[in-house]
């Protein structure tokens, strides 16, 4: 199993906790109290917190200055990617994302352009409604609409729209080679080249 597909996080060395029987009589209760008083359990607790203080292994992330790394499959504000070869937008206006969107937040209009190709004339995502489920990225046959890592969103109104041009990779960013392929929903699984079989032609 490849690393990417192993979702069993952690050490997997679970064990059953040994829970004593509850005291039934007063005498049992008394014995439990005496045992707990004179065992060092309470001081183990004190030692644990003191040890952590002395180790000073602070886990605080000072958020505005420091940020945690995002997982590759993180689903934040969408991005519209360009074709790596030509730099034209990948979107072919098929309308699948609009169709599959379960919160009805994608709206697109298309037209036939001068080259008789379908072109997106209007495209907007209502981020007031979007639940970032990732279906649009998953259904997109061209890997055109993907999820990016921008999760700090502030708007003056609840119905906050983003238009196609806002989401599209800017041309200068693209030319600088800064457009990252999206590894999350809908992307090709790493190592899938090996699992592709040649089409048998000898029938």
């Amino acid at each position, binding site marked *: 199993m490849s690393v990417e597909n192993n979702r069993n996080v952690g050490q997997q060395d679970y064990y059953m906790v040994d829970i004593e029987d509850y005291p039934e009589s007063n005498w049992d209760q008394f014995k439990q109290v005496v045992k707990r008083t004179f065992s060092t359990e309470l001081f183990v607790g004190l030692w644990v917190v003191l040890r952590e203080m002395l180790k000073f*292994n602070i886990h605080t992330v000072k958020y505005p200055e420091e940020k945690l790394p995002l997982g590759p499959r993180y689903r934040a504000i969408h991005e519209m990617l360009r074709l790596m070869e030509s730099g034209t937008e990948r979107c072919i206006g098929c309308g699948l994302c609009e169709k599959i969107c379960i919160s009805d937040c994608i709206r697109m209009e298309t037209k036939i352009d001068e080259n008789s190709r379908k072109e997106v004339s209007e495209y907007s995502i209502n981020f007031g409604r979007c639940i970032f489920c990732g279906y649009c990225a998953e259904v997109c046959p061209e890997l055109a609409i993907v999820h990016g890592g921008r999760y700090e969103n502030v708007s003056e109104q609840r119905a906050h729209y983003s238009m196609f041009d806002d989401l599209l990779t800017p041309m200068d960013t693209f030319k600088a080679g800064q457009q990252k392929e999206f590894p999350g929903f809908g992307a090709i699984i790493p190592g899938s080249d090996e699992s592709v079989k040649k089409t048998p032609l000898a029938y």
Partner: protein
Amino acid sequence: MDTAFIIETIVKIVVILLIFSALAGIGTYFERKILAFMQRRLGPMYVGPFGLLQVAADGVKLFTKEDIIPTGVVAKIFKIAPVITAATAFMAAAAIPFLPTFTVFGYTVHPIVADINVGVLYVLGVMAIGLYGPLLGGLASANKFALISTARAASVFISYEVITGLSLLAPLMMVGSFSLIDFNNYQVDNGWLLFSQPLAFILFWIAAFAETGRTPFHLVANDHELIDGFGTEYSGMRWGLFFIGEYANMFFISFVMALLFCGGFGDGSVAGALALLGKVAFFFFVFLWVRAAWPDIRPDQLMWLCWKVLMPLAVINIVITGFVMMF
């Protein structure tokens, strides 16, 4: 009574009031920081260097908040209750020697407001009167949580106050005086009472946690059960007075423990004075340390502990001490 004495006393009172009001604020800073470190957090960081001005920010907040007297409360009692907590906490400080006697510019200063011959009784008694703050405040608040908190305060009070008194009886028998300075001098000659009366020390320490209402006996204003207990309806500086009273109490009880059981300021040298402050800091730290580590117990468990376990132990301790002293 000469004028110099009156001026000196007034100056001492003002100094103690100022220092311990400020310490109550700084105590919250240390509490936040130490709890944070024990939980692998940073605590206050942004207000001032290392969050030191957080205390000032809290003060500004408390002072500028509206002082709300809700409808339905017994206004007079509601207003006076926090004053009782804060005032008695500071009144208790009158009989505590905070430092050994020292000389400044040829003038001998006794850092105790009044060395009365019933010092221990006075300190513990006045601290106990401080309980009227939660009691009256909770009853006057017309709030169910405050009322439950008051009932708890009463039940906790009758439990731990017995331990406080009885646990101190044995050391009192050995020292033969109620004055905290006599306690200190006794321990200079005979070694710390902590070693000759270990059981009394532990009992008094446990009772001190109940007296100051700290975890694991934080039952009167238990946040997750009673919101803020008796303080639920309070806002602004009235709540702040409760707060200052509680933290001042923590410092004073730390002083009392250091003086009664841990040698106090010893022979009165500078090292002894520093040692006293170190002991007080340690006891204060333990208050915070325990809060980070241990859970709260139920009120009935505290009453069970006090009446059925600690009180018999205290009585046995007194009897044994008596026999040892007799023969």
